[in-house]
């Protein structure tokens, strides 16, 4: 339901455009900056999609992102564990961030990382440190 906290063991995928990646393809802090007037960082909730494997869930998210966005040729998808990212920010800064469900009609797995604007640059760098795996678009 909208506004629900995502379970800590679950994962989210953040779309990382090519202009926000390092030369080796890893996301830099800018991949986790808010756009102007954005209230939260948009992510996709992997487990919500109820796929058999993680790979299938990534594929499903890929097709959602391709429908929604103008995906660049060098873009990547970064997988993040909810507990890891919240815990890392909490222990390193004493700040609390939240990952909440933000479903929309065409994208029921859509979710948001809230409260990164408390200290955006530090929190963005810390989130970038917690990226689990990276996936290219096929």
């Amino acid at each position, binding site marked *: 339901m909208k506004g629900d906290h995502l379970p800590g063991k679950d994962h989210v995928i953040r779309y990382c455009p090519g202009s926000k990646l390092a030369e080796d393809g890893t996301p830099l802090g800018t991949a986790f900056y808010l756009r102007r007037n954005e209230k939260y960082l948009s992510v996709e909730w992997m487990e919500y999609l109820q796929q058999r494997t993680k790979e299938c869930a990534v594929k499903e998210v890929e097709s959602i992102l391709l429908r929604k966005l103008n995906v660049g040729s060098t873009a990547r998808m970064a997988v993040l564990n909810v507990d890891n990212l919240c815990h890392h920010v909490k222990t390193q800064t004493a700040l609390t961030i939240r990952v909440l469900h933000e479903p929309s009609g065409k994208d029921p797995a859509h979710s948001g990382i809230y409260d990164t604007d408390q*200290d955006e640059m*530090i929190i963005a*760098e810390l989130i970038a440190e917690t990226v689990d795996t990276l996936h290219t678009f096929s």
Partner: protein
Amino acid sequence: MPSSTAVINDIPLSSPTFFDVPPKAEKVAFFYKDLLQATALNFSRFLSPGVDRSLAETCLDQSLSNDENLAELTVQWRSFAVSEQIERIGNWCKPTIGRAIAERLAILRQCLREEEGQKKDISLDSLRAMHAFIEQIPNVRLPQISLTTEGDVYLRWKSEAGRLFSINFLDDRRVRFVIFYPNPRHSQMINRHSGYETIDTVLPSADRLCSVLEWISG
């Protein structure tokens, strides 16, 4: 204290610097402001009482088309100025670093256009600020570079020992930055600082915190 730090910190606070001089961007902005004011003045003339209605409409159409041309010219001018600035960085006095930064910026510019539309470009003010900033660092190490959605330039230096310095150039003067470095008394603890400053003061401030110049210089 390293000599590079001494040079920067020895600048008397009252002496004029590059940053006190109105940048080229401001002069160009004045030029465009004049053009826009002239267009607005034309509008008010057309809408005055006693002016033939059909003539006024034709003139307004003409003026609107001039506005579209002006917008298009602005985009073209900005694109040219960004290319010129990237080229200037490439021809910088430290050619290896200059060329590497310029090549990376050209790739990122392509990515930005691919993602945000062909009219989107790197912020010229941010690019100029980045150039002015990096010129202050003797023997600078090649940073990781990326762009924000707004087209602002972001640089990051990261070393193995939990050290990180990243800087986001917001316009031709203002920056945000973040520094991570090991706590000198408790090695397992990482100190984390963020701030908002001008390009001429951020380096001395960062250097006072954790001798940042030592590890972003090669």
